[in-house]
């Protein structure tokens, strides 16, 4: 069962522009995480935001969480060609032993 759903499915931008990806989920969560996957590689953890937090920053990444709307957004500022990858949101629900439920991902392409 899919918990998170990313939007858009694919995004193409120019280097230097900002990229925004959205994630919606269905049930209450303990935390929400974003991961990046470069082509042919494993996933890499980017950032975690807990259910009692509204916004979090890490370098060029900004994540927001709106638990009333069951949604999150990931903003990458001043994108670079190296940011080209697929981005996944994943949620952890209470009582789930911390198991992640992933969305289907947003494929970001940053053109130089």
């Amino acid at each position, binding site marked *: 069962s899919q918990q998170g759903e990313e939007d858009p499915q694919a995004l193409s931008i120019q280097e230097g522009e900002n990229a925004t990806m959205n994630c919606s989920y269905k049930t209450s969560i303990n*935390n929400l*995480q974003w991961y990046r996957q470069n082509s042919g590689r494993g996933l890499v*953890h980017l950032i975690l935001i807990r259910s009692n937090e509204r916004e979090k920053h890490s370098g060029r990444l900004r994540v927001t969480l709106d638990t009333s709307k069951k949604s999150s957004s990931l903003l990458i500022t001043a994108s670079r060609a190296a940011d080209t990858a697929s981005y996944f949101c994943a949620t952890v629900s209470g009582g789930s032993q*911390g*198991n992640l439920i992933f*969305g289907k991902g947003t494929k970001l392409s940053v053109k130089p």
Partner: protein
Amino acid sequence: DAGITQSPRHKVTETGTPVTLRCHQTENHRYMYWYRQDPGHGLRLIHYSYGVKDTDKGEVSDGYSVSRSKTEDFLLTLESATSSQTSVYFCAIGGSSGREFADTQYFGPGTRLTVL
């Protein structure tokens, strides 16, 4: 890749044969996970382990079994491989010793399995 290796990295096998994939970690993390990744489905949890000899089923566990006899190794076995099990398999680890559950997961490089 946070001290996680998967073997083999690529495998082609025939329908009906047993297949075992190995995940090895050097991080002493309590939790280990097996996922499969398919186009249009994202990552789906197959099985996970929360300690030596402690395992549980995930969302898509049918046709798969796991074993964890040591902290560092988590094996995924396809008892009788089918074409629907053609996929990319990822192992992940999380949760340093003592934590209630894993917050962040660290992923291996993946195993591409093709069942003919």
